[in-house]
């Protein structure tokens, strides 16, 4: 029956749009399942995997070492001081949590909007979210002067009868980030259950079968299972959808609620959300492009996906460009000396390099995405994604450091200089992210088997293709 379908499909005249379809020609239920599950179960792990994993483990070692030293000595090992009391740790936090946003957008919003193409990239994008949020969540703790009592930011019944101070955006952050982490984790795991069952059924060795069997939670593929599963997915998608907008909005409140010139601005929530999705899609591409070429998945992650991600980056990048443009205007229009000074100082002061790097990486270079030749060309797109991801880190650095280093009283002005530990923890966290992601690719279904199968023409009524 499947074979019949397949033959029918392949004997059709190829439409002109063939190259940009969401699933390559000649794929069948069997081939999709085979391609995705073999990566974990049967195929030999590629050498590149071992190579990158070794490098990332080295970075994780550096991370553990520097964090141990941080806990031993205190946050003074970083470059922070008065007036720049927030530095790399907060920059990294905002950057990582922003990266996570694309995963949730793909898995939740695009699901509700019935964008079939997201089915082939949602799983690893969600994994990216989980690991990015995990890295992000560590930084506020590293940043504390007394990290061992971080839980005082959580409202819990205690003998001191003291609760957090709910007017502080940092407390809102705790709620935003923890909600986000929990919903993302549930969504990710729930989505994986049918595929884990597939792995269980296809596993050759007993302990592998047991391993996936436990994770699959007794999934039998009954129609009742599918019905509940679909309902739960939609509910979680509904829960996750507002989170895409709310989490980074709350993160931006960390800045807007403060009276620091350069932070105290109502444009920050949309600015941050757009920036988050922008950097997130950059990360999705940075992960997707090597993955599809290493594992030969060009038929499942097609040029169509690259094209769509490129378009989304272009859109969010333009929103960002708008906010960059409106900031000087608002400062000028406010007539506030301090605001105007910050805008001027950003562009021409000691951190002008950060400002112009931000503009180049986030606005000027990504304009290449207007051209389809850049959107569908994996290497070019990869290059732009790396540039954007770097630019987004520098942007957060610029927002934090260039605003703080020269605020109201000129007597307190001073420049921030990062230390070797600042860099060690940042690059260490990247290593942690990569290591986790590689383990995910090796041991879990990195694409959603059942959702990719939905994209096949014969799994849809009337045999139409998903565009």
């Amino acid at each position, binding site marked *: 029956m499947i074979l019949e379908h397949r033959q029918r499909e392949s004997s059709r005249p190829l439409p002109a749009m063939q190259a940009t379809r969401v699933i390559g020609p000649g794929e069948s239920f069997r081939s999709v399942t085979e391609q995705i599950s073999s990566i974990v179960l049967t195929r030999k792990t590629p050498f590149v995997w071992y190579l990158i994993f070794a490098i990332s483990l080295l970075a994780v070692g550096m991370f553990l070492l520097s964090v141990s030293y941080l806990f031993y000595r205190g946050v003074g090992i970083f470059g*922070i*001081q008065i007036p720049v009391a927030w530095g790399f740790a907060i920059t990294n936090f905002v950057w990582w949590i922003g990266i996570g946003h694309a995963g949730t957008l793909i898995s939740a919003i695009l699901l509700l909007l019935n964008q079939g193409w997201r089915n082939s990239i949602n799983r690893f994008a969600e994994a990216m979210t989980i690991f990015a949020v995990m890295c992000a969540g560590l930084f506020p703790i590293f940043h504390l*002067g007394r990290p061992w009592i971080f839980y005082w930011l959580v409202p819990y019944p205690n003998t001191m009868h003291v609760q957090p*101070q709910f007017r502080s955006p940092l407390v809102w952050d705790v709620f935003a980030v923890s909600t986000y982490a929990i919903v993302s984790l549930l969504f990710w795991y729930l989505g994986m259950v049918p595929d884990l069952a597939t792995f269980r059924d296809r596993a050759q060795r007993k302990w592998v079968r047991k391993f996936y069997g436990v994770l699959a939670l007794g999934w039998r593929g009954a129609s009742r299972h599918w019905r509940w599963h679909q309902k739960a997915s939609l509910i979680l998608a509904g829960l996750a959808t507002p989170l895409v907008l709310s989490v980074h909005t709350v993160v931006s409140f960390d800045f807007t609620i403060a009276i620091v010139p350069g932070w105290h601005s109502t444009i920050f929530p949309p600015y941050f959300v757009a920036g988050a999705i922008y950097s997130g899609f950059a990360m999705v591409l940075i992960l997707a492009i090597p993955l599809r070429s290493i594992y030969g998945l060009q038929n499942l992650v097609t040029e169509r996906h690259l094209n769509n991600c490129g378009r989304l980056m272009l859109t969010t990048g333009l929103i960002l460009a708008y906010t960059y443009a409106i900031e000087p205007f608002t400062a000028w229009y406010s007539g506030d000396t301090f605001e105007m000074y910050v805008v001027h100082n950003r562009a021409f002061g000691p951190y002008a390099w950060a400002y112009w790097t931000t503009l180049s990486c986030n606005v000027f270079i990504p304009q290449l995405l207007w051209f389809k030749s850049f959107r569908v060309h994996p290497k070019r797109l990869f290059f732009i994604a790396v540039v954007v991801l770097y630019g987004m880190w520098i942007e957060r650095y610029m927002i934090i450091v260039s605003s703080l280093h020269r605020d109201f009283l000129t*007597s307190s002005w001073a420049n921030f200089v990062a230390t070797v530990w600042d860099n060690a923890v940042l690059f260490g966290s990247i290593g942690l992210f990569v290591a986790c992601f590689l383990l995910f690719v090796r041991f879990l279904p990195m694409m959603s088997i059942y959702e990719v199968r939905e994209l096949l023409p014969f799994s849809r009524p009337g045999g139409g293709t998903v565009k």
Partner: protein
Amino acid sequence: MTKLTWDNAVLLSPATAQRLGLENQARVNLALRGRSVEASVWILPGQPDDSATINLGWGRWRSGRAANGAGFNAYKLRQSDSFWSDQGLDIKKIDRDFPLATTEMHQAMEGRDLVMEGTLSDFQSDPGFIKKKSKQPAAELSLYPDWKYDGHAWGMSIDLTRCVNCNACVIACQSENNIPAVGKEQVLARRTMHWLRIDTYYEGDRANPRAFFQPVPCMQCENAPCELVCPVQATNHSSDGLNDMVYNRCVGTRYCSNNCPYKVRRFNFLLFEDWVTESIKLQRNPDVTVRSRGVMEKCTYCVQRIREAEINAQVEDRALREGDIKTACQQSCPTEAIIFGDINEKGSRVARLKAQQLNYALLAELNTRPRTTYLAELRNPNPELQKDGAE
């Protein structure tokens, strides 16, 4: 004036330094009549051209761990026939720089009304001229009700005309409040712990500038920006209007410092206090908590003195009297520029000072409504002298 710590320096005027091709912190060799010493340059606006000022008493080698090796020994240049000044100093640049630690990196006001000032004639022609400059927003703008103070409401008035930048208040504060000395390395990293600092600004021609001094303790704001951003309620408004800092509740997010427009909050980035040396334990004020690493601290208006006086008054069954409480900075100020007291008490000295026309709040436009306010600086320049371009 230089705000230098841990080292002395060769003070040169901007023009002289430029002529010699020297910049701040340039390491130089000083040679005078056959004797020489290595030193580091600091450019001081207002220093007379073609002259160098050097402080004595530095460069010691047997004074314990704090003083050893700090600065350079200018006695080496001194000879018995010219004790205090001499001519013919030869300054030669050596390759490397020698870093100098200063507590104030930027000594210009950039056109901001930080130190308000005027001449006596300005004041006589319009006594309210400072009030007109101040941008204090109207009190009724806030949607929230004001704090109510039935008892005392502590406040401070600092007279900028009187301040002579002697730094006695800074040292008094440091010893009263167990404030750690952090060492040169940490000063270079901008982590000085002074709860009270004297901001020094130069205005006008760098060769002949006007200098302004402004002691800045915690402003104890009525609408304190630090209070609402602390996630753990470690900094709170007390019933008498102080911004209390609860050390053992602080987790060290440093958000309060970011949001403090006066940047008076100080953070224990590392373990700055010496908890080990026995002799230092006896040196400390037993009424003030010794802070550990990772907590924020700041000026408390010497809250330990306030509470002690309140308890004493209660024991003696009387009301607090004017002068019962003096903060450490006030006590040590030789010109009585700093006055502390109860602003709820109509006749108190601080209340009368705050009622003056010259009274202004630093950064009033932010509507923080500080308890510490300033009396603007009044000068009475001699018109004869001003003709020469000098002040």
